[in-house]
Each structure stands twice: as structure tokens, then as C-alpha cells.
């Protein structure tokens, strides 16, 4: 059963059997505007929760993406490197950024559920 979580810096992650898929939320994608470029981590990169792991650029903005949990990157989404518009078209599906092996479940508990994230966005 996949577990869907959200961070305060607008990343989502979907965990399935110890592997997390991570991307940015629709809110973040809308705020950025048309995404033109993404810098993604390569397989093997070890990250700790809160560490910078990727960069997303739009025409008028650039934003760091932070790892919501600790672990090791297993793959990145080559499709959005070739066609960054996927991040705007389907940010919470096909526009995923990278996958990683998750170290443990403790950090997951600290992230927001979908309902909590929706409430959080309303305050912004």
C-alpha cells in the first residue's frame, strides 16, 4: 500500500516497499510557472533529510528541491530532463523527479498527510 506524504517545501513522496518516488506538488509547479530545466541527482547519491538534492528552474525563478527523508537515490526521471513541461502537465504523476531507497520509517511520520498539506497550502 503506497504511502503519500508532503513536505513544507512542497515536495511529495510516495513510498512503496522501501522505495520512495519524489516530485514537486501542483501548488509548487503552478507557483514556479513553466518549468524549463531540472538538475537531478544520479543513482548512488546519498542524501539526508533536508539536504538539497535537485534544482528546478522556470523562466522567472529557480528553486532548490530538498530530500524529505534520508536515503540513497536509485534513479532519476530522464523524461523530465528532455521535456520539462511534464512537470507542469503532471507534477504529481509523470513529472516525478527521482526515486530513492528510504532509510527508515521514522522520518516519514514527520511529514504531512495529503489532508494536512491541503490545509497548509490554504494558509499561504
Amino acid at each position: 500500500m503506497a504511502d503519500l506524504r508532503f513536505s513544507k517545501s512542497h515536495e511529495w513522496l510516495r513510498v512503496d516497499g522501501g522505495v520512495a518516488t519524489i516530485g514537486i506538488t501542483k501548488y509548487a509547479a503552478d507557483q514556479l510557472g513553466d518549468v524549463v530545466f531540472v538538475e537531478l541527482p544520479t543513482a548512488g547519491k546519498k542524501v539526508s533529510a533536508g539536504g538539497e538534492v535537485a534544482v528546478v528552474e522556470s523562466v522567472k525563478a529557480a528553486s532548490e528541491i530538498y530530500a524529505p527523508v534520508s536515503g540513497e537515490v536509485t534513479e532519476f526521471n530522464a523524461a523530465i530532463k528532455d521535456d520539462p513541461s511534464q512537470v507542469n502537465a503532471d507534477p504529481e504523476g509523470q513529472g516525478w523527479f527521482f526515486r530513492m531507497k528510504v532509510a527508515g520509517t521514522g522520518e516519514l511520520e514527520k511529514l504531512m498527510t495529503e489532508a494536512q498539506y491541503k490545509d497548509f497550502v490554504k494558509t499561504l
Partner: protein
Amino acid sequence: MRYLPLTPDDRRAMLAKIGAHSIDDLFGDVPKSARGARFDLPPHAGEIEVERTLTAFAERNTPAGKMPFFCGAGSYRHHVPATVDHLIQRSEFLTSYTPYQPEIAQGTLQVLFEFQTQIAILTGMEVANASMYDGSTATAEAVLMAHRITGRKRAVLAGSLHPHYADTVRTMAGLASEIASSPVAPPGHAEDLASLIDENTSCVVVQNPDVFGQVRDLKPLADAAHAKGALLIAVVTEAISLGLVTPPGDMGADIVAAEGQSFGNALNFGGPYVGLFAAREKHVRQMPGRLAGETIDADGRRSYVLTLSAREQHIRRERATSNICTNSGLCALAFSIHVSLLGEAGLTRLAKLNHAKAIALADRLTSIKGVKLSTPAFFNEFTLELPRPAFAIVDALVDRGINPGVRASRLYPREPKLANHLIVAATELTTDACIDAYFKALKETA
């Protein structure tokens, strides 16, 4: 005052609209201790008086055109066609701003797109930016870019890189770099840079033609750098050399930082000049400075716009590729117009002329006993070794009405082995009479 359109009536009416009693009300936030400042400065003056004052300053200088003139070393005296200086004074070029509203700045944007293309072609590289301040700061920015690309921080600088450029790199890139400089070899001699390149080296910075005028094949050095995973940064201070000498891009350079002053821009006692910056396309996102790109408008018409701005300071702030904001727009325009006016046919002729004049000058001067040519391969600048210290000879020549070149010791004050060397430049403006006069004067004083 002629530049201030508001009349006293205007000011009264405007203060009334604002609801202020006097202009002082609008400066109410200035701390009391800072009010009522007095300035020991003269009152305003009309054009006649201002012109008189400025002309007096100007007349206490000897323009290069007033005597046989042979100074180079990073700044070169070339002819600027009348068309160039006329066009850059058009209101729409002179008094426009950075093209942030592209719909009403297609003039500037198309010029920048053409300029970028010209630089790429001239340097033999794939992509170029819309100019930096000058060649020296472009070189420092190139070093920082190499660090970003390689993830390393050691920069190797050739001893024959213009000392002002090397000092600029040390200042602007010094904090982010470990800088290793090779000692300066006697002019014209090979420098051993390859042995300074290791696995921590991000770039090797070499000037070609170098500060002494020596022209070299950079390919072996490029190969040595690449073998260790480092980049070759080629620096060019005399852009006209790109019309006759194999360009750095064809010799394996990864980044080219150059000074564009030779095209379209007068000497101006050192500035404003124009920095040229070119690189490989795969590194474009690491490039500093503005970039003009092609796109279409709402009607599908080809248009130009500043692009890839997310690298720059106004968006990336502390993570920007550079802090640069202003570029050298008008100087870049002058460069571009001059190059368009010349074209390949004209540039080839211009470059050949420069080289031929330098050959004639070198041969004539080295026919004097005791005067030796240090740099066997050169474009329009070469170095002579004189029989005694250049300091005294230059002084004597200036007294005889010749401006004979730049003493190497001016640029390298702590290198006794360079005390007798003189860096000499010739251009298309060098006449046979000039060469004769130099020969005669040097024969007497050498």
C-alpha cells in the same frame, strides 16, 4: 538649469497636490544631524565654461595620434570607421536600457544575438554571451565557471598571461580558488604548464598571443589539461588576431575570455572596454552574463529575448553564476557594427595589414645592432630585447617624440630578467614614416 524642466510654478502646484508645505517636508526622514549639508563645490555652469574646463584637461594629454605610437599590451590603437561611432550615438542605442521589455527592445536584442554569433564564429566556439565588463573580469569569471563545471578549485595561470588579468583573477576568483602561477619565462620561450596540472586542477589559463605577443599552438596544452579532467581557458587581448591566427576553439579551448576593444572602441585610457565570453554549448547553463535567445511572439514572428535568466543574480541571488548585472552593451554594439562592416573579406585584409606592419617594424628595428627579437611567432605585437634597461631607452625615445611601446618591467616590476625587454605593437595605423622615425630614434639611443 538647462537639464531641469520644472519651473517654480510647477513646483508650487505639485507641492500643493502632494499636500506638502515645502520640499523640505519630503526630506523629513533625514536625521537632523545630516540636514543642511554644505559642499565645497562650484555652482552650475553653462556649456561654454564646462567645455573650456574639460578641454583644458584634455590638452594636458598627448593623444596617441600625435606621435609615432607603438603601445599595446592589452589595449590597441585601431581605426574606428565613422559609421560605427555615428550609429552608437543614435538615441535608440545610446539612451535605451537593458532589454527587459522585449517587445520594445528588438533592436538591442537582435544586435546581441548577432554579436553572440559573431563571437562564437571568431573564437571558433559554440556559444557566447552578451558581453562582460572587459577581458580581465571575463577571465576571472571563466575560472569560476571552470570550478562550477569540474567541481575542482585549482587554477593554473600562465606566467605570460597579462599581469593585470592574473591579478584580477587572484582578486575576483581567489577566495574560491587555489591559484598556481607558472613563473614567467623569458619572452618567446616555452612555459611548462603541463607539469602543474593535476587531478585537482579545474583549469589552465593561457593567453594567445601572450602578453609579449608570442603566438603558440594551444593544442598540446589543451590535450594535457583534458587528460587530467581539467579545462583550457584561452585568453585573447587583441581580438583582431582572430582574423588571421587559428582560433582558440580550433585548438581545444573549453572557454574563451577575450577583450573586444580592438573592434569599434577607442583607447579611452583603459575603459570602457568589452569582455567577450564564449564556451561549449554543453556548458551554457554555467555561463555568467546575459544571453539573448531566439523565440516567437504571439503572431508567430521570429523575435529575440533575454533568456536562461534563472542563472543570474536577480533570480538566483546568492547562488547566481555571477553578480554581474550591467554588461558592456554599447561597446558590444560598436564591436558588432565594426565586424559587420568588415566582414570576412575586410577582416582578413585588416589582419594581414596588422601582421605585415609588425613584420616590417620588427625586421627594421632588429637590424639595429644589439636589438633582438624575443618572440619569433607573433601577430601584431612582439617583444624586443634591448642592449640596456628599457626604462632609460623609452624615456629617451619619448623625448624624441616616439611612443615606443610598453616596458615589460612596467608589468613585471620584480622580474630583473625582463628589465631590457620592450613590448611593441603595430596596427593598420602604423605608417612607413612612423617605422622610419622609430628606427632612426632607436638607432641613436640603443
